[in-house]
């Protein structure tokens, strides 16, 4: 039986802890290098460490493939992951909701910002043809979707937000090397806040290395990763409209 408080890797027997690793050490291959590889892994808390493969891959680099048995487990019972709470609605319901509750189209601006030129992801969400048979936001009758494309500066995004009176901003970030996405995403939030518009829009970010958790940390309303389709985003936007409406109505009531 699996003990949820100590979940360990499984190789071929429960709790054997089996883990595969590979890495390079910047030293020439030798028995010492192999032993260094073994110790490195042993210091990770792995037992019965076996260097399955060791190979010199240049005069001063050696590559290792190692197996070891992880002695520690994870307390799965205690993990809570922030997730976008989402009821994915069919397209028609989304359109209907916007029509009846907003009485106008929902305005969405999308862009792949700063130096990032990977549009395939944002296109998959926004463009009519969509992705994997899931039509994009442009195909929703009640959504006005403006896809600004790639390498759009934050300044341009904000200009467009004003221009179309955007309800939501969709940002894509694919390049993450040296955490450039964090820099770019932070820059946008800071600018939105400086302009005083951050609270007036729903701010969403997506990309293969984006998590909801990260998005929240950076001050976004939601983060989406791989296997996202337009209906997920649209459902989230509609849900936000609902939530904000309630808030607005609440406010108005107070104002009365």
């Amino acid at each position, binding site marked *: 039986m699996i003990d949820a408080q100590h979940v360990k890797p499984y*190789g*071929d027997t*429960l709790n054997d802890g*089996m883990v*595969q690793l590979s890495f390079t050490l910047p030293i020439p291959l030798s028995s010492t290098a192999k032993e260094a590889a073994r110790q490195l892994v042993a210091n990770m808390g792995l037992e019965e460490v076996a*260097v*399955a*493969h*060791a190979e010199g891959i240049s005069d001063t680099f050696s590559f290792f493939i190692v*197996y070891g048995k992880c002695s520690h487990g994870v307390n799965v019972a205690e993990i809570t992951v922030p997730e976008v709470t989402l009821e994915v609605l069919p397209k028609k319901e989304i359109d209907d909701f916007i029509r009846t509750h907003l009485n106008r189209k929902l305005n969405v601006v999308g862009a792949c910002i700063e130096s990032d030129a990977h549009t395939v992801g944002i296109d998959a969400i926004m463009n009519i043809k969509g992705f994997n048979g899931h039509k994009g936001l442009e195909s929703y009758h009640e959504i006005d979707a403006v896809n600004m494309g790639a390498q759009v500066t934050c300044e341009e995004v904000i200009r467009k937000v004003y221009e179309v009176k955007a309800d939501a901003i969709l940002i894509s970030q694919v390049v993450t090397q040296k955490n450039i996405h964090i820099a770019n995403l932070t820059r946008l939030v800071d600018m939105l806040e400086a302009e005083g518009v951050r609270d007036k829009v729903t701010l969403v970010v997506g990309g293969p290395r984006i998590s909801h958790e990260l998005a929240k940390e950076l001050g976004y309303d939601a983060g989406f990763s791989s296997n996202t389709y337009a209906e997920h985003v649209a459902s989230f936007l509609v849900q936000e409209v609902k939530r904000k409406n309630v808030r607005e109505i609440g406010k108005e009531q107070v104002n009365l």
Partner: protein
Amino acid sequence: MKKLNLDQSIIDRGRQYAKQIVDKVQEHIDAHSTVTVERSVLRLLGIDGVDQAGVPLVNGIVEELHSAGVLGKGVMYWLVNGILNTKLSPQQLTECVINREIDLVQLPRVSEQEIKNTAQRLAILSLQKIKERRKEREELIADLGKGQEPMLYVIVATGNVYEDAIQAQAAARQGADIIAVIRTTGQSLLDYVPYGATTTGFGGTYATQANFQILRQALDEVGKEVNRYIYLTNYCSGLCMPEIAVMGALERLDVMLNDSMYGIIFRDINMKRTFVDQYFSRLINGYAGIIINTGEDNYLTTADAIGSAHTVLASELINEQFAFRCGMISEQLGLGHAFEIDPQTPNGFMYELAQAQLVREVFPHSPIKYMPPTKYMTGNIFKGHVQDTLFNVCSIMTGQSLHLLGILTEAIHTPLIHDRFLSIESAKYVFNNLRGLTDEIYFRQDGFIQQRAQEVLEKAISLLEEIADVGLMQALALGYFADISRTSEGGKGLQGVIVKESDYLNPFIPLILKGGNGND
């Protein structure tokens, strides 16, 4: 599709030599029985269980008769005589014998004819049970379907039958079509079959009837879930070859590693013993509708894959004839061959293509078994995964039938759950991506591939001619296969060979041979 421009008359000649070779060995086979054959007879009659020391009851009885020097009549004779005397069931009688309450040899003798008749009746009833399991399989396959060729064949080998069951089900969900439960090291040299569910094996799990049952049930379960009948494989080899055949027939195994010579060559089991054992085991396997896998692939782990390629083909033709003698049909013969050429060989892949296509064309109706690279796999799992990929490519390009998946950790450990997953995923990808290729591609007329295949074929036929001349036993002594030499008096298990007396009784043999075989 024929692509090699092979001369069919050469192939026919090879089959002719192979038949001559096997015919000679058959004389020895017909004249002998073995302790395990006799124990198989008891198992066929439903006798099971172990004594207080953990020795199987069937061993107890056969040992006793063997020591008494009376096994030449066949255990069936003594048992049925006992039954007729005592009116006990086979199992009850056996227990009495083991408990020393009855001594079979001391009982009064019923008439030969009466014994024969009862033996015949009991044998027919036993075979009926096997036929039922066979029918069950056929119905399940008709109902659920089965994997598409090349069928994805993986091993589980945790040493613990319960973990094996978990891994086997996971593998089926991942896409495996055939699951083989590898046997612990050493079992093949045991002259008895261990009993019950087992949880401690090394490099594999004990083959026991209880373990067979546990895995059969696990696979039937997952088969319904994945909507595909999942084949179960085990090892019908070693000193208890025919007994395992019986167990497999009763527990509805679908595939058995079962070779006429593997035990001799790779386990140093005496050849006189093995030839007799393999015969009876194949009668049962054939009857049970089981597909056998031969072990020629192993030759290339000890001999050179390029230089000894022809020995594989020659041996397959011999194995085929041995199987035909047991009433098996081509459709049951998963003849083994392998992708084992040193990956450093320039154009090694072309040799592999030639060989794989050759085996395919020589045995067009057989579900040939194609084995992955093993010997030249290293601890570099990434490179290993690539070696396995080329193997997958070769298999789909040449239309192999039973495709044993290479595993990236081959040189390290028996497969972990994700090692197997990665293999299955990769093979599925390659097969789906290249499936039509075999029909699209031709080999150059008299090009390297055609010439290589023709050369291997010719060398194989010459070798068979030579073996037909010196005899198979001598050929084994000369180390013709796998570069390993074995003598006819050497190896384990010779003391378990029994000279049949003229009134030797074993109704199963004639019953299965004379039309009883489900194959006709």
